[in-house]
């Protein structure tokens, strides 16, 4: 397996999508190729950083109340599935 093929697998691994990835072969390549190993580490790191930066947002109480009210108000309302795409 060459670096380009491993790069595709690394993308899948960074996305925790292991299906179709021959993990032992990829791990063997990663153990001997610092460039590919570094790329996996950076992709994982980027994902973690973005999750940290955006991940702590919690629905403010006023919005939670508004959504709940909206559902209450819509009860008995007309169903118009054409508006949902």
């Amino acid at each position, binding site marked *: 397996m060459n*670096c*380009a093929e491993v*790069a*595709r697998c690394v*993308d*899948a691994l960074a*996305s*925790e*999508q292991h299906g179709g990835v021959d993990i032992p072969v990829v791990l063997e390549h990663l153990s001997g190729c610092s*460039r*590919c190993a*570094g*790329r996996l580490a*950076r*992709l994982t*790191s*980027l*994902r973690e*950083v*973005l*999750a940290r*930066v*955006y*991940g702590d*947002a*919690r*629905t*403010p109480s006023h*919005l*939670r109340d*508004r*959504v*709940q009210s*909206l*559902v209450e108000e*819509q*009860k*008995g*309302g*007309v*169903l*118009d*599935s054409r*508006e*949902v*795409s």
Partner: protein
Amino acid sequence: MLNGEKNPSTTVDRAGAPCLSPVARARFEAVALPHLDSIYRMARALGSDAVEADDLVQETYARAYRGFGRFELREYGAKPWLLRILQNVFYTFKGRQRREPVLLEDVDFDHFVDELSWAEKIPISVGSLNWDHFDEELKSAVGRLQPEYRIALLLWSIEGLSYREIAELCECALGTVMSRLYRARRTVGRHLREYARERKLSTARFD
């Protein structure tokens, strides 16, 4: 309710129009409201400010409620369905149609070889970085991405969706998702590299 089973959805109101049955209403609250934080997180990341994020969330839930009769609980549950509605609401707010995938956007695996050399240059040794400022820079860089790239990057990072889930949600090919993520990561990486250089943060190891 089994996967793929439709909701016991509609009754008819006094005017003869269909509306959600009491069972479906209760079902909606049970399957949709628990994802409010996830939807808000994405809306906050997509919207230009907190007010727009609030509007995106409200409109998403209003549409979801109205369309719940057609909703089928599939393998991935209600969250991807709500995220898809949010995406469509976002495009509506931005006054543009979702771009159809084009051939040029499909991935060329030479990109990945290119990305190997690009990735070597991402600054990692950042010394005494002001993390609050860094976070704002990162948000700014993500906010400047094209909407399609931004959505793919945020779904991948914040929601932890797989490429296949993103492709299904965005209704595009797997290769298109990979291409969008590649471009998004490269653009954000370039921006952060410039940010590091401007502040004379250590990047020597990667240059």
